[in-house]
């Protein structure tokens, strides 16, 4: 593996756990990346037209909602202590319905500024609501976000019972040529935050919140902001989703929840928190998308698609652990 060149150095330089985490980190990106590359090659091999450079915008547009959902699920998972936001999918669906039917439709504000601002604001608001439930009320994350999941799902279908509405042309380009934009926005925010102390503090809380707390980190605030960040990212993901489906659809959002969490795990972010980053989330989501796209190309039934997706998910998370297990054996003997 690619690890071998860097490990002797770190082995002698640092003691204890340090080389192990570095190894596993690289190993993980390597594993998720391996699946991704294999699937990419297979896709290009069997379906060259769809994956030709001129069509990249469209392909990214198809994958963007899932990639965005995976990125939105990451901060809460990284924050540790069972951190998990299952309301990301319904939140995307809710934002989709609000901006298409109310902001663009009823209020007639179809320009980029009000639409994007509304997406971000709703995302942040519900992210903050989840953060409040998890950190201030201290409800277990999966139950807290289940509450939000049900509230958002119910609100969405109450407001807009069936698919309706249209979107302006500028938004439509985000499923074609400019499909990368919402993802770039998420990436830029993450990059900016990693220049600030925030991402470091998030990782500290995720790996050992008690140690972080005793070191003076405001664990509550860091965790709260993780959910806000997830909500904000869901706002961008909702723009991709809206651009892709071109209307308001109350039934589509919830499907993204489990897929996004699977993508995060597949890409190698530890569900125990504290390990992984945006690259892992994108890798996992892209791999799931490419798997779907390959199986759809071969016209297999949705049931076979489900089986393949489940199998790859289990093998991927197990393989990472096997790899790590082997590494740690080697270190201790």
């Amino acid at each position, binding site marked *: 593996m690619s690890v071998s060149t860097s490990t002797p150095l770190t082995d002698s330089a640092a003691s204890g756990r340090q080389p192990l985490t570095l190894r596993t980190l690289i190993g993980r990106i390597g594993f998720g990346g391996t699946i991704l590359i294999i699937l990419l090659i297979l896709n290009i091999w069997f379906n060259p037209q769809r994956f030709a450079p001129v069509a990249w915008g469209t392909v990214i547009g198809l994958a963007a909602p899932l990639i965005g959902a995976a990125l939105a699920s990451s901060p809460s998972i990284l924050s540790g202590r*069972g951190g*998990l936001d*299952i309301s990301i999918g319904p939140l995307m669906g809710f934002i989709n319905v609000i901006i298409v039917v109310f902001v663009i439709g009823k209020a007639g504000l179809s320009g980029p500024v009000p639409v994007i601002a509304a997406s971000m604001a709703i995302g942040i608001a519900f992210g903050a609501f989840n953060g409040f*439930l998890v950190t201030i*009320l*201290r*409800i*277990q994350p*999966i*139950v*807290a976000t*289940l*509450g*939000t*999941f*049900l*509230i*958002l*799902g*119910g*609100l*969405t*279908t*109450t407001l807009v*019972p069936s698919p309706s509405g249209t979107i302006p042309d500028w938004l439509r380009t985000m499923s074609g040529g400019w499909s990368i934009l919402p993802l770039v926005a998420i990436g830029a925010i993450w990059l900016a935050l990693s220049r600030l102390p925030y991402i470091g503090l998030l990782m500290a809380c995720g790996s050992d*919140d*008690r140690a972080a*707390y*005793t070191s003076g980190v405001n*664990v*509550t605030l860091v965790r709260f902001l993780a959910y806000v960040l997830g909500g904000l990212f869901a706002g961008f993901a909702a723009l991709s989703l809206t651009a892709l489906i071109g209307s308001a659809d109350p039934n589509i959002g919830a499907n993204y929840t*489990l897929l996004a*969490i*699977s993508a995060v*795990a597949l890409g190698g972010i530890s*569900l*125990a928190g504290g390990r992984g980053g945006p690259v892992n989330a994108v890798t996992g989501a892209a791999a799931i998308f490419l798997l779907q796209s390959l199986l759809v190309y071969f016209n297999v*039934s949705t*049931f*076979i*698609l*489900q*089986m393949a*997706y*489940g*199998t790859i*998910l*289990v093998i991927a*998370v*197990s393989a990472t*652990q*096997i790899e790590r*297990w082997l590494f740690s054996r080697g270190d201790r003997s």
Partner: protein
Amino acid sequence: MITRIGAEFKRNRLYGALVMMVILHLIGIALIDGYGSIFTLRSMLVLSALLAVASVGQTLVIILGGIDLSIPFVVGVANVVAAQLYGDGMDFALVFVIVSLLAMGIGAINGLISAGLGVHPLIVTLGVGTVALGAVQQWTGGFPSGSAPQFISDFVSIGGTLGPLPFPGLVPAVFVLIALVVLVLRRTTFGRQLYALGSNPSAARYALIRPVFTWTVTFAISGFFSALAGILLLGFSGSAYAGVGEPYLFQTIAAVVIGGTALVGGSGSYVGTAIGAAVLIEVNTLLIGLGFNPSAVQAGLGLGILVLVSLYGRERSVAQDI
């Protein structure tokens, strides 16, 4: 006085759920005509009982420190396979054995992979469940046929009776089930091992508890009760449907948490879960009775879960944990 009651609730969250159940029922009687009638009570008991059966596994697995997202899939697998095999003319006893073994096998795989490889059970159970249900649907081509034998339908029917009692057999059966699960958890070696492993896995190993074995057996038990729920639901709805378990994905977890079990493992009781299941059904029935449409009921249920859990199901803060 108030603080003493509060402290009592903190010590035993189970009372919280019990009080909630009674309060919700009284609100229902006050606001809705016929809420206290025997028919409403009977339908709520049957629905709670079905949810309680599906939640046995979730309770045990959460005490162990895990989580089982495969329950809705296994419920669907059992529902479809049982209908299909019975529809093909197989003897129902044999159908039951086959479906149970299949479900326990799926559960055992969940536990084996999760504990054996140290992978988070959330993802493992989700993946394994998806594969199992996908395979079964591929087998039936997505259009399952067949039905349940009449005695199962009678056993779960809301209008059913058991001799002179105005309830179908399922309701007293679930009370027996509660007694059995409590007995196993409190009085058997296996039960005590679950709590030990859930509260401190490394200490449990020194007490000669085999984690992989215990996880495998517990997830297999969860599979069995999911299958049982799937077969009962087949009798309840009359025809097979692969998605029948979908509401149980999060409802089982919600029932466990409302019942006062913390998701961190090492504590919890099945009595609490059964009450939690009843609370969920009470909230649902109350909202439907107040004339909300299904979407608003869903939103109200979400809000209800949040309010209930924030009243008595809060976690400790980091500061208290050092």
